């Protein structure tokens, strides 16, 4: 394998990792604030991708790419908010098994609904003309769209950091992660905040799905495959930590790139190996949030 193709392989792995970060950040944010493990997170990713394909197809080829990239996650976020109001808010105080059952059942229902609404055929979305080419560096041609996905993930990471540390909404989220009751004593409507956080998580999953549309075929099954990867990323990074999700995605990207270069057939196994290794050394993940210190039954 020569230098050029190795560099392209590494970029491809980085692109996967970058997109995985966007999705895992949503999963981690929702877990941190709401303390629910949402197995339907992959469904939001799939719905984001399918909506992207459908919205894109509404216009003349290529015209609606950017509006669809924004609108698909927004619609999914609204759908997420409705699900939170109707279902998830009833189980915040329930044990984890109940949460797993509800969200797993929901993911099955959503998968079937998607199959009915969009059919079993795969769809494709070409990248916009401006990003369709390659960037030549030292004989290697890097796909521009891959670079865009990486830039988007960096922007999401910076945006989330700014949101959490520079805005009142972000302070409320961080306060809710620590002590939702304390936040309600500050006169803040915590149930409404939780709806917003859940919608933000769905937005990020769908943004990952919409952004990945030009890189792979869009269709049924993409929900469950991404869920496993997103969970590995958050478990490695530590559930509840955005920085952890970034670190976990970086670890996965690196392991995947190295695996693809040296032992391509074993590459998927290395990811699980990395997770096991991290869990043996640090059971709560690299940047895991500690358990909430306070509960109703003191």
């Amino acid at each position, binding site marked *: 394998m020569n230098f050029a193709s190795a560099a392209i392989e590494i970029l491809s792995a980085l692109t996967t990792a970058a997109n995985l970060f966007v999705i895992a950040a949503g999963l981690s944010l929702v877990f941190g604030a709401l303390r629910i493990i949402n197995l339907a997170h992959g469904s939001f990713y799939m719905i984001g991708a399918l909506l992207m394909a459908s919205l894109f197809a509404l216009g003349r080829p290529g015209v609606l790419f950017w509006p669809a990239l924004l609108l698909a996650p927004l619609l999914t976020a609204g759908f997420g908010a409705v699900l939170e109001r109707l279902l998830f808010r009833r189980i915040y105080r329930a044990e984890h098994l109940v949460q797993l059952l509800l969200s797993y059942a929901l993911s099955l229902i959503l998968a079937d609904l998607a199959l009915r609404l969009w059919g079993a055929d795969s769809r494709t979305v070409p990248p916009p003309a401006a990003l369709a080419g390659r960037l030549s560096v030292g004989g290697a041609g890097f796909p521009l769209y891959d670079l865009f996905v990486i830039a988007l993930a960096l922007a999401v990471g910076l945006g989330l950091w700014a949101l959490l540390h520079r805005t*009142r909404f972000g*302070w*409320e989220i*961080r*306060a809710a*992660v*620590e*002590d939702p*009751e*304390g*936040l*309600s*004593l*500050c*006169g*803040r*409507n*915590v*149930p409404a905040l939780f709806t917003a956080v859940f919608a933000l998580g769905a937005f990020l999953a769908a943004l990952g799905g919409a952004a990945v549309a030009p890189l792979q075929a869009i269709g049924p099954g993409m929900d469950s495959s991404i869920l496993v990867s997103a969970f590995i990323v958050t478990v490695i990074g530590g559930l509840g930590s955005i920085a952890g999700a970034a670190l976990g995605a970086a670890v996965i990207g690196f392991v995947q790139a190295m695996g693809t270069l040296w032992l391509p057939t074993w590459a998927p196994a290395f990811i699980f190996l990395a997770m096991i290794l991290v869990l043996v050394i640090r059971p709560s993940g690299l940047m895991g949030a500690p358990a909430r*210190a*306070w509960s*109703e*039954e*003191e």
Partner: protein
Amino acid sequence: MLEVAAIDVYYGTSHILQGVSLAVRAGEVIVLLGRNGAGKTTTFRAVMGLTPARRGDIRFENKAITHLPPHAIVRAGLGLAPSGRRLFGNLTVAENLALAELPGGPWTRGRVLALFPKLAEIAPRRAAFLSGGEQQMLKIARALLAQPRLLLLDEPTEGLAPVVVRELGGWLRGMREEGLSILMAEQNARFALALADRGYVMEKGRILREGTTSELLTASELATHLALGPRQRPAENA
């Protein structure tokens, strides 16, 4: 101002409060005395809507608040400075204060910082790294910024050094002069009765006795039920 009428409160299936009634009139400082597990914190949780009462009524300024969510009760004019280390430890002091501030009342951030100048000095520090006295200051400041007309203080002297307890007494007198009514749960009866107009003694989820401070100070059961004085007390509170 606040009327709690025969409330019953449960944690799951355990019956914690059994027919608790008490009242606070505008301008009063009322103390709720009792040992660990007597039900003081639970009474506050019920008033604030954190653990709603299953039976009975709670009225604030002639408005029923029994079944309102906590944030609505706070916005109706009730504040709670909880016991223990209940701050947003990962947030800075400044962020803690900014989160707590609600508009439309007398307690602006400037006024609260004038009452607690120390908080301005430590504004960029994370709340988890504050001393016991600084944490108590921040908890009270946070509660004030939500513009309460009645402030509930749960174990304000808990874990404080004697010199800080004296300082706390000064803060509370200052807040009272500003027209704030106070309902305070304490195990340190001597500290509490020096500040209060009236008090209630709780035991096992019921009100055992009610009276003026002088009546309570001479009541014989106080000596047996309460540690009278700033003695070493356990850190945990029910």
